[in-house]
């Protein structure tokens, strides 16, 4: 599988799959999720992201939102729970 093919899958732009990556720095985490359709709710302690199928609920403290050019969304802050509904 070529990198381009992988990107196509993980970006979630053309498929229903999604890709998630977490990196931790002290108590702060960076949660990167590709394949996001929209941000349904955003506040300092809770963020609901809509995927093509289902939703991801990220809860924590001091959450910040970043939107990337490839359709990815980054959640920065103290992530306490990630829930798929």
């Amino acid at each position: 599988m070529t990198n381009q093919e992988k990107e196509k899958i993980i970006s979630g732009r053309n498929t229903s799959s999604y890709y998630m990556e977490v990196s931790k720095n002290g108590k702060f985490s960076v949660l990167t999720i590709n394949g996001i359709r929209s941000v349904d709710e955003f506040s300092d302690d809770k963020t609901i992201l809509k995927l093509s199928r289902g939703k991801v609920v990220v809860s924590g403290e001091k959450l910040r939102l970043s939107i990337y050019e490839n359709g990815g969304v980054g959640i920065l802050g103290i992530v306490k729970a990630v829930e798929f509904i």
Partner: protein
Amino acid sequence: MMSFICFFVGYRVYEFEKSDITALAKLLISANFSVDFKGEKCEIPLYKCRKFEKIIHGKVNFKVSKPKGVLGFLFNNRKNYAAIIALSLVAFLWYFSSLFVWDIRISGNKNTESDIIQEELSLVGFSVGTMWNKTDLSRVELSLLNSSKNVAWININRVGNVAYVRVVDKYTYDNDKKEGYSNIIAMQSGIIEEISVTRGRAVVKVGDSVKKGDLLISGILSDGTFTYAEGQVLARVSDSISISTPNDVLEKEYSQEFLDRISLKILNKEINIFKIYRNLQESYDIIENENRIYAFGKELPFAIVNYKYLPFEYVNYTRSETEVAEICKKDFNDMLLQRLSQGTLLKIKTKEGYTDKGYNITADLLISENIAGELPFGYEENR
């Protein structure tokens, strides 16, 4: 934290309603636009602002700030010619000052003074004020190695505008033949403890008592030829040191200081920018206060120098007994250390006390030290 690029290319801060963030995120995701939110705010580089506003225009309410960052500052002050000129001048001076060597720091030298090495460096064209771009450091190193009598190895590193110079001294071998002829004589009277002859013929032995000026190692060899006698002669030497500190001394009594002038120091040149003319007293001290100027943690080659005059008059001052004794003991210790710099103290007997005029310390010393002194001589051959 603001990104480095944003700071230099300039940026605008957009502020949104909290309820609009989700709608805004949807717009940006679909438009493939990258944004980093800080709560309800985000910073967009100036070159992306137009595209960003096109995406969000009429769909969400927002407030936008004036341009910020370096380009933003220039844009906001585009009609403020004084600020633009000042900024350009600062940028130019900053660039101009980075062209020169500000300081030379020498390390690794054990036998040669740093000043001597700096002088040798200046002879090969590298000194404070030299332009970096006209200096080939490898060539400077090579030239110095060729010309210097003191340096065996040199490495020059540039850190900022400071040259860090590491050197290794040349080692002078004792058996290097000196020119001419010489005897070794006693510089002080004493009893000989040890003789080591590098060149020449010893004429005294261990245990001999010698007087100042006696011949110790002869430069005339047993076969009648001459040489430059060299060697060390350790001897037990008796000496005495004495010091007295008076009770009454003249001390300076200062009156109100006053500013004389303010100068601007650029590299090593001073330009007077302010001066007060007034009648001066006969006796005064000058206090020079140099304030270095820093920008972004970097020292600039400019300084503001204040010169203040501090007039004084000499007044008689009588020290207390404790004070005079303390000063005398301190001076005595300094004198003793200086005397023992070349030798080893074997025995000391001190006598101290108050007199009518002050405090006296006398010490009889027994020291082991090198008493050899060179006494060159010449000869003419009669044909």
